[in-house]
């Protein structure tokens, strides 16, 4: 079923909306949650919370891109759940955060607003080559492992690590040039 049709189901308050959403996007959302949490049970609960949140949000919200809308909800819920864990935190998420700390520019002024920061990230991504963008998004949005990215791009894990390191360096320079404070 097309996403537009699924959204119409939400607007007509048909329970099929959630069923069809689950059928079409369940797999992707489970992967997003699992990559962050690395726990099937937590991921499943997280995805169920996504359906609940989507049901409560649509209407009045009419997402332009249902897949991205659901993925963002799932990522936020999974991240919140990950933060509240005291033990057994997903190691990949911890690693991602450690890696991203390399992109933090030295503090000089006031912290940039959320919108400005997101806008800067978008501009940085738009300027990257498609392959580099894929590597960055898969690592830091989808929290894929280096091995998974290497397999998808048919390159070595070392090459992925090298390119990620280079992209992080470029991102830090970009933030400094743009005067972004995190």
């Amino acid at each position, binding site marked *: 079923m*097309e996403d537009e*049709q699924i959204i119409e*189901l939400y*607007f*007509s*308050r*048909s*329970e099929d909306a*959630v*069923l*069809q959403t*689950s*059928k079409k996007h*369940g*797999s*992707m959302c*489970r*992967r997003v949650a699992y990559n962050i949490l690395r726990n099937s049970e937590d991921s499943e*609960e*997280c995805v*169920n*919370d996504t*359906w*609940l949140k989507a*049901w*409560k949000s649509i*209407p*009045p919200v009419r997402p*332009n*891109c249902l*897949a*991205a809308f659901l993925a*963002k909800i799932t990522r*936020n*819920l999974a*991240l919140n*759940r990950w*933060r*509240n864990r005291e033990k057994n935190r997903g190691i990949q998420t911890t690693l991602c*955060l*450690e890696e*991203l*700390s390399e*992109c*933090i520019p030295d503090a000089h002024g006031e912290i940039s607003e*959320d919108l400005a*920061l*997101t806008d800067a*990230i*978008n501009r940085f*991504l738009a300027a990257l080559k498609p392959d580099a*963008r*894929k590597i960055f*998004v*898969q690592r*830091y*949005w*989808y929290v894929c492992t280096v091995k*998974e990215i290497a397999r*998808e791009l048919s390159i070595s894990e070392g090459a992925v690590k090298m390119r990620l390191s280079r992209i992080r360096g470029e991102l830090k320079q970009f933030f400094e040039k743009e005067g972004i404070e995190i």
Partner: protein
Amino acid sequence: MNKAERLFEKIGEIDDAAIVENIPKKKRRLPVLLTVGGACAAAVLTLILYRSSGQLFPWEGEIKTVQPFLSSSDLPYGLYERLKGLSQEEPPMLTAELSPYNAGMGGDGGTTIPESSGPWNEKFEIEKLPVFYGNKRYQMIKPEDAVQKMRKIADIFGEELTDIEYDEPNPEYFPPEDREWVSERCSYVSAKAGAIKLTVYGHGCGGEIRIDFPAEDEPYSRDEIAKLLKFENPVCEEHDIGFTYHVVYEGSDDALAAILNYSFRCFDYRYEKDEYNFLMLTDNVATLDCVGMYPILSAEEAKNELFEGNYSAMYPDVIENGEKSTAVCTGLFYRPNADGEYLLPFYSFSVKTDRNYGESFAACLVCAVSPQYLAADSDALFN
């Protein structure tokens, strides 16, 4: 939150296109997952078979009336979740496993568990299932009724009702005979009462009312609103579902109950960080009567009914353009019948069709109750 976490969070808000264009390829599913899923389904089925043989579970009393918990959050859940309502006691522990995923009722599980091992397969024959009466949740609501309810609630807050917006269902999504009826109804109506937003939902929610209010502004704190609506004493322990804080208040015989015209329960949701707060007033504590246990069709018999045209679907004529060989039973759910008053078990089928949008799969529903108990030439109208 440290700086790296903030950056990680903001990366989460990048443009939709970058997210969708870079979705990682699917991993190959391992057979062991199916085996585990099948084992869970088998465990569930053992329970179902035991129950369908006429024997009661230890936690069950005599089945006369039931209170299925029909919140919108469990709408995707199928038969097994509904069966939880058969017990007036604490839900059996095993129901924690009765999710649509591990029982093949929906999601990935529904599409990957083969029909031959689905819980609806004849070797797991379920002979009888209960039918319920008194359902009100699936009635659409007339716009004027919704506005009237909202105006009375606005009065409680001492506010005028403004910015009234209607969302009408698209009649094309309904069978031709229902389109005139549908066109007089609305999916939902929203309006403002000062800083508060009110929404009355129709189809699927039976007039559920949602009250959104700013998280911080006085006097619109959750407690203040609860006080205005006379929900001063939460009766259910506060707990959280994921990151949603959840309080339950019982409705009373006060003015609000009269406005809503039903015995209601109020759910209060508060998302983490107080993104927004809202109260959801719903009638899902209304008791449904179990009118009895009725013989049901097997999945194979239901498939025959499907190809004889005895089905309902979002689009008409699906079967004419459908491929018989591709019809797969994907679930057994409780749904309302055409007049919305009964809750009956339905089989759902996925049928490959070229209707409307080129090659696609359409969901078709076949009432699982034997036709002899249904009115002739009806859409599962109970006889």
